[in-house]
């Protein structure tokens, strides 16, 4: 019945499609003991999508941009629908707004647990990959897989489909879940709350390099809520503007040594988006159990050690589970899945918090709702200069290590940011010219 399996000796090449989320490269030159980064780039699919969006209708943007990233499709949908809604004067309220927070909770749980346990934890514990780690830490990996799947389940139920959810649209949703459907998730979420607290405790016990950096942290800030979809752009160094002023405060620049655009604060330079930034700017708005878990883990109200982002991701997972339970508790199925609006010309902005940091979209529409111009600034590009600063510090400290050990240190430093490229085991092509 079975045929012999013979392809096992065949050479298999791994190309870009196999690791479709992205790739990075780093070229370093060392002269007289001084380190210089000659080239640093991260492959960025969004640039292609900006061109692809021109000439499409406004309603295509959430579906098209959701395909940019398999890990955070919700973030792309959220930033795009909010940008479009700002043009048409649509405001999400009540249950429609709450469902948008709920689906984001699912994406945070899924993405944070994936990154913390399957990508970042092996770096800390000295394993080549999560598979190697799984044999020695079965219970932890099994628990993490179950927790991650509970995040997927929320996205599936509210979003309609797991990988590229199709239920979100400008003005609301195509279809809304019933209260009973949401309530069926409650027992799993109650388990998840304890599992997420366990995750905080476990990661807090890891050995962390004793480094703190004076980052400029930027995140979306809302007066009452830990940020997902709505709020101003705020930093710890004085930025406080509406999302519509993104281009006044930040700029995207071409750097000769990078093949991608890098974002910077116009007046100052590098900035940092992501869990540490959100946490440090919004600690008071975390739910009580998340705050208590953070305190028990020895985190203060701010965190400037980039390696501790693994703990902060787990604290945010506690918050996302608590928030999901709260949203399900207050949910009342709305009479209509979407609000009506009139299409008009204009420019709109959306800044929401993807798991890996603030994601900004800008669209300009003609009076029939066709896209004239699109701008997408993903979190990885916004943090890129900050990542480069961190890499320079690692290089200065560890340049005498053998190449393979140095590569591991560099990848660990990049992985702190959970960039889109971090999914591959060895995602960073490092070339060191030691003269």
């Amino acid at each position: 019945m079975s045929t012999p399996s013979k392809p096992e000796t065949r050479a298999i090449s791994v190309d870009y499609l196999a690791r479709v989320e992205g790739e990075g490269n780093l070229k370093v030159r060392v002269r007289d003991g001084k380190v210089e980064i000659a080239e640093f780039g991260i492959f960025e699919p969004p640039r292609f999508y900006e061109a692809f969006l021109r000439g499409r209708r406004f309603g295509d943007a959430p579906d098209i941009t959701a395909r940019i990233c398999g890990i955070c499709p919700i973030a792309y949908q959220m930033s795009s629908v909010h940008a479009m809604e700002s043009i048409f004067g649509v405001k999400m309220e009540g249950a429609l707004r709450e469902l948008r927070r709920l689906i984001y909770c699912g994406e945070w749980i899924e993405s944070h647990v994936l990154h913390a346990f399957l990508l970042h934890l092996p770096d800390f514990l000295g394993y080549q990959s999560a598979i190697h780690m799984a044999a020695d830490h079965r219970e932890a990996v099994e628990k993490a897989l179950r927790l991650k799947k509970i995040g997927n389940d929320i996205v599936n139920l509210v979003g309609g489909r797991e990988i590229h959810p199709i239920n979100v649209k400008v003005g609301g949703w195509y279809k809304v879940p019933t209260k009973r459907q949401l309530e069926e998730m409650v027992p799993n979420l109650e388990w998840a709350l304890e599992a997420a607290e366990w995750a905080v405790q476990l990661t807090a016990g890891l050995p962390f390099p004793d480094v703190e950096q004076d980052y400029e942290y930027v995140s979306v800030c809302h007066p009452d809520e830990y940020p997902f979809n709505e709020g101003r752009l705020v930093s710890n160094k004085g930025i406080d503007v509406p999302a519509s002023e993104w281009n006044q405060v930040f700029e995207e620049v071409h750097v000769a040594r990078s093949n991608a655009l890098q974002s910077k604060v116009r007046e100052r330079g590098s900035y940092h988006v992501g869990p540490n930034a959100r946490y440090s700017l919004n600690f008071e708005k975390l739910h009580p159990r998340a705050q208590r878990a953070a305190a028990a883990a020895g985190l203060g109200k701010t965190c400037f050690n980039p390696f501790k982002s693994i703990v902060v991701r787990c604290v945010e997972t506690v918050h996302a589970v608590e928030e999901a339970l709260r949203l399900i508790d207050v949910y009342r199925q709305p009479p209509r899945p979407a609000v009506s609006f009139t299409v008009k010309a204009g420019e709109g902005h959306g800044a929401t918090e993807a798991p890996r940091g603030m994601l900004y979209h800008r669209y300009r529409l003609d009076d029939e709702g066709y896209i004239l111009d699109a701008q997408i600034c993903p979190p990885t590009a916004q943090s890129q200069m900050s990542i480069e600063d961190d890499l320079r510090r690692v290089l200065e400290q560890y340049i005498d290590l053998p190449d393979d050990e140095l590569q591991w240190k560099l990848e660990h430093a990049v992985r702190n940011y959970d960039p889109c490229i971090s999914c591959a085991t060895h995602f960073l092509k490092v070339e060191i010219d030691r003269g």
Partner: protein
Amino acid sequence: MGEAVVVIGVGNPDRGDDGVGPEVLARLEGCVPDRVRLVRLAGADPAGIIDAWEGAGRVVLVDAMVSGVAPGTISRFDASDTPLPAGLRLASTHVLGAETAVEMARALGRLPGRLVVYGVEGGAFTVGEGLSPAVAAALPLAAERILEEVAGA
């Protein structure tokens, strides 16, 4: 009494040849013995895959593959006792490929008794497109091979 058999098709139908897994399953619908359960998964989430084969003694998993051979080429791997070849990539638009899920399950002691993986080499993974002609042409043979695997279940 025979053991439960599951055939899992992994893939995203919106990404060209990545959709080959679910397409093969569509061809098996109505043709497989009663005891065989067909499961479509849009992505290779390890817990999703482990749940899908829970309780099954024999599993066949079919997915798109990216190895550099001619699109439409069908490869068979018996993963029951030996790890999938190092470097094997089952195409995924998600962060983890099915090969990771399989090896993670092995490390966790959660593999079914018998697991056979079919990879159909993909050529194009364009957003919003269906299967490329070479991969579509491979569907009947892929379905036939899997039917042979589950015959007598």
